[in-house]
């Protein structure tokens, strides 16, 4: 069964039809590259998947569960928009890496990763902290050595249990940073990093939420050519660990090399889709041909 199933997505901005019925599916562990010229609706499509925009029509299903149904949404009059909690749960199926990174500038690299998961487990974390504080206060009051030892033992057991959640998150954050090769920068602030490093942090930040599908919105378009490589390398490595990804990109060689499936979009419709071989070497549509030709001349 496909992990992601998109059917008939339509989206208008005022009078402009941006998406005119997009449908495709993604298998687990598959990497899909979406290519096309500017204004073809690639970014809007990704934003609809992440519920930053709401499609007027069409359905989005993940693992067989219909997350979004444009027609019923319209009937229910923006119901989805209003139920904040539900919306958040649905968003967590997807991760999104932005063109402009959008790291939190006031937080260190580590805290950028930790913020969302700690807020998510806020309750557990608060309980753990409270338990530790209480035990420490008791420790101060303890008179005999025996009493102290007993409390210390209890503290160890209890906090190891309560803290496991927080510790788990921290461990995972460190492991994720390691994966993108930035563990040594964990205490730096985003402003101290290069663009490529910032984008790798952004990827790690998206990964830590365990999304079913990780989306990239032109992840290298804001980067110097020499920094593009390090970001693409990370995406390549993610492919090896069976991460399902949708990558909107202008890097044709990368798309050809990494993608399992390529989707070419033009004027809000999928003009052509298939494996990279077919799309790049033997394009059927005239539009695809002229797009690829214009790319080669650059």
């Amino acid at each position, binding site marked *: 069964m496909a992990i992601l199933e998109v059917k008939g997505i339509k989206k208008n901005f005022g009078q402009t039809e941006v998406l005119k019925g997009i449908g495709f599916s993604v298998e687990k562990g598959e990497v899909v590259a979406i290519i096309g010229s500017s204004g073809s609706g690639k970014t809007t499509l990704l934003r609809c998947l992440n519920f930053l925009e709401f499609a007027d029509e069409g359905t989005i299903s993940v693992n067989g569960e219909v997350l979004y149904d444009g027609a019923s949404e319209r009937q229910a009059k923006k119901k989805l928009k209003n139920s904040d909690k539900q919306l958040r749960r649905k968003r967590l199926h997807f991760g999104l890496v932005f063109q402009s990174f959008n790291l939190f500038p*006031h937080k260190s690299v580590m805290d950028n990763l930790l913020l969302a998961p700690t807020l998510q487990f806020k309750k557990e974390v608060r309980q753990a902290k409270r338990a530790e504080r209480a035990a420490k206060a008791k420790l101060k009051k303890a008179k005999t050595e025996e009493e102290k030892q007993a409390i210390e033992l209890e503290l160890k057991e209890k906090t190891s249990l309560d803290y496991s959640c927080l510790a788990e998150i921290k461990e995972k954050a460190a492991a994720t940073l390691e994966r993108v090769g930035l563990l040594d920068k964990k205490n730096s602030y985003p402003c101290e990093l290069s663009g490529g490093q910032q984008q790798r942090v952004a990827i790690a930040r998206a990964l830590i939420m365990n999304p079913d599908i990780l989306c990239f919105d032109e992840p290298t378009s804001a980067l110097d050519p020499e920094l593009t490589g390090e970001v693409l390398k990370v995406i390549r490595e993610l492919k090896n660990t069976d991460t399902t990804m949708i990558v909107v990109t202008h890097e044709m060689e990368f798309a050809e090399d990494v993608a399992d499936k390529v989707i070419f979009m033009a004027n809000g419709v999928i003009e052509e889709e298939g494996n990279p071989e077919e799309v790049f070497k033997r394009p059927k549509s005239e539009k695809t041909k002229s797009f690829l030709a214009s790319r080669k001349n650059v």
Partner: protein
Amino acid sequence: MSFIEVTKQLLSGFGTTCLLFILTILFALPLGLIICFGSTTRFKPLRYVTRAFVWIIRGTPLMLQLFVVFYVPGMLFDSPIFATLENGRFIAALIAFVINYACYFSEIFRGGIESISKGQYEAAAVLGMSKGQTFFHVVLPQVIKRIIPPMSNEIITLVKDTSLARVISVIDIIFAAETILSLKALMWPLFYAGAFYLVFNGVLTLLFGYVERKLNYYKV
């Protein structure tokens, strides 16, 4: 009248000035944030009402507002509550200052909040953060850094504006100096009072400089 006697009298007035200043900051900052939410809400009627209110408060003299707060309740309910209460005059002045400064602060907050890029909200949204979490953990910390310079400006103005409270007979430091002037025909305590303001604002300037440097650990 000796220098020490004058200092004592001025200090008692300065205590009132400081209290008025501190309490105004304490109440006006959160109220300013609330007014800011009102003037940026998507609910149009509330937005228009709030903006009209801010327009009136910012568009009329603070001295007039002091009179309104002090006298109008008495005229409406036929009993001068602020004049009869023990600290009534001080409370009336505090209310007027809090409302007035909250409106100025709200505009500073609005400018700060609107300067945060949409990308920050979107990044928080796709990470599953709620609106409240986004505001308090992502937006507000960045807003605070950005609004320190205009805030310090406004707060220093507030120190000096507290002297307006004497129009409803709140005995602040200027009022104390004026009393000495009229009773003992001494001019210099008035200028001496000015030195109090100068020192107070000097300390505030240093404090804001310190906070600004503290928040300089990151750039945007």
